[in-house]
């Protein structure tokens, strides 16, 4: 079985500071890993993914994430936060033998001016 944990319900960061949104996963094999962002009353938008290769993946809007196999983590990061980054962020995992994604519960990211 595959699972995802986002340990923080909410993350507060001052504008201009670096941000990290945490994600850990559990799969039986090698994972596909994804981050999505959701703005109020909107569908989820794809940010970035890890499939294979370089452990540091870069995505939309200046976000990046680092795949750490030993710690089974895929934390989302950005060097300098913007107020417009405030949204709900979802981490998702897919075991390469599985049919679908499993999503975390989501983390509210609040960037304070």
């Amino acid at each position, binding site marked *: 079985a595959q699972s995802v944990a986002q340990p923080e319900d909410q993350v507060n960061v001052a504008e201009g500071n670096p941000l990290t949104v945490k994600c850990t996963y559990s799969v039986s094999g090698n994972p*596909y890993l*994804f981050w*999505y962002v959701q703005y*109020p*009353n*909107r*569908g*989820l*938008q*794809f940010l970035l*993914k890890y*499939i294979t290769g370089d452990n540091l993946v870069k995505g939309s809007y200046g976000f990046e994430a680092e795949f750490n196999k030993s710690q089974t983590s895929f934390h989302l990061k950005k060097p300098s936060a913007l107020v417009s980054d405030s949204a*709900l962020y*979802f981490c*998702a995992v*897919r075991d*390469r033998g599985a*049919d*679908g*994604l499993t*999503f*975390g*519960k*989501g983390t509210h990211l609040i960037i304070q001016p």
Partner: protein
Amino acid sequence: SQTIHQWPATLVQPVGSPLSLECTVEGTSNPNLYWYRQAAGRGLQLLFYSVGIGQISSEVPQNLSASRPQDRQFILSSKKLLLSDSGFYLCAWSGTPGYGYTFGSGTRLTVV
């Protein structure tokens, strides 16, 4: 390019009335299709998924049903809505396993 359409965007329905939400995908064939519900701006609850026409898997027993009458059409229905059916409903599709899901814009359903 592939696109996904979901409608309506908002819906207010009385308790006991029927429901039909539609989702269609363009630009791909034989997609996997999914219906999720999201309560109070938080986590996603998978309701139904389909890997082909007429093939529906239900994840959570409830007052809702799903159908896939055509390859790229996925419909969420209810015969009699309950107050607890209120929420934000999202349709999604996936193709190649490494490419994740693409989500529709969602339907805000309020049952009154």
